[in-house]
């Protein structure tokens, strides 16, 4: 409530206000004196209302357009995800088909390589690429989840050639020593020359040191190198590579570098011959 209430109200101001109001009212009602002013104010009001309605409708249009765009974007994303999923499924099916084909081919080749039918195709578990590219130890591990009875010193094949032999089995893993491992020695035959090819410690490279009655001229570069079967591990007559280079070591000795055909880096599945 008011803190200071007027104790005297001068009537003059009110009388004056009432007189002015009455005069204005009379002139407006009788002669429409303020009709233009009133109409202008009403026009402004209507214009403002229309303006705000237009702004509101445009905002709503933008909002609905934005919503449509969002819906379309969401639909587009959804379709893209579905397409990606279909692509992934097709890719996986294709890969699965390829792997199946690889396994079947590998099993067929194992039989060609002399496997009596008990050969196993196993997937790679790990491969020390660093050692393979730099050092002497070239070891590959295969998975054996079903724990097939795999013996050691069994030939390991890819494509139509061998790459190494089993050296250990433990737990669910099988260790493969590749031909290029410096501890591995493979008896080979080159154009009638028999020699023991020792791993060079370099990828896909083995070396034979030849001494005695054979001469360097007896061997040609790019000659095929086959297994001799003399080691009792590999069947004879399987091509494992080609002669890369021949170089003299001393008067009676020369070295034959052999490039191996089988590349362990190109494969995920490897076949192990059994019973040979």
């Amino acid at each position, binding site marked *: 409530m008011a803190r*200071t*209430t*007027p104790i005297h109200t001068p009537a003059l101001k009110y009388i004056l*206000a009432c007189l*002015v109001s*009455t005069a204005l*009212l009379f002139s407006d009602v009788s002669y429409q004196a*303020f009709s233009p002013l*009133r109409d202008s104010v009403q026009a402004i*009001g209507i214009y403002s209302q229309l303006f705000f309605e237009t702004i509101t409708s445009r905002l709503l249009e933008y909002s609905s357009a934005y919503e449509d765009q969002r819906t379309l974007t969401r639909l587009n994303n959804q379709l893209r995800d579905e397409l990606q999923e279909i692509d992934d499924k097709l890719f996986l099916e294709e890969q699965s088909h390829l792997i199946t084909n690889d396994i079947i081919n590998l099993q067929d080749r194992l039989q060609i390589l002399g496997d009596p039918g008990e050969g196993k195709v196993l997937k790679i578990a790990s491969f020390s690429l660093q050692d393979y590219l730099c050092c002497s130890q070239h070891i590959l591990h295969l998975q054996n989840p079903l724990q097939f009875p795999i013996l050691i010193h069994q030939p390991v094949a890819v494509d139509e050639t061998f790459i190494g032999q089993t050296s250990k089995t433990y737990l669910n893993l099988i260790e493969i020593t590749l031909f290029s491992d410096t501890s591995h020695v493979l008896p080979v035959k080159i154009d009638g020359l028999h020699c023991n090819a020792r791993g060079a410690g370099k990828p896909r490279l083995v070396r034979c040191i030849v001494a005695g009655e054979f001469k360097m001229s007896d061997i040609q570069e790019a000659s095929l190198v086959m297994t001799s079967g003399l080691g009792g591990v590999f069947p004879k007559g399987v091509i494992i590579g080609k002669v890369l280079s021949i170089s003299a070591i001393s008067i009676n000795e020369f070295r034959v570098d052999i490039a191996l055909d089988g590349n362990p880096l190109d494969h995920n599945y490897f076949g192990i011959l059994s019973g040979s």
Partner: protein
Amino acid sequence: MKFTSHLFIFVTIFSGFWLDSLIAEFNIRSYILALESFPYLVETSLGFLILCYWIYAIPEKIQSSAAFFYGLLIDLCFGSAIGFNMLFFSGISYVIHVYVFRFRIFSYLQLIIFFAGSSTFYVACKYLIFSPENYSYLLLLCSFLINALLWLPIYFCMRSLRRSFL
């Protein structure tokens, strides 16, 4: 009084008149067929009652000039004849200023009767000046009852607003 206070008071009065126009535009007879033959009897004076409250509550701040200008602005904004609301705002302002001490000792019922009567007089004059063919005592009686019912809600609502913002 500050300009913002005057603006606040004018906004409340403007809102009252705007509600009056909304209520007048809402013709319930078009929604209920049974009432179609009845004459239009709903005539509220929310804006006028709100002005009355402000003059009653803070008479020292709303003088003749303030009432005069409020009336002018309302006339302009709502398209009524220039001078009508100015005249009644100035008149009711004078009456309330003169009898403000008596109103302070009035009961709520007496206040209701006085302000409902004032607003009915306002409605009656409006009909007599602008629409004499629709003038009826039944309309005035209904207007009196409606405004009587509206006074207390307006009184407490405006008092709450005054205590919050002024």
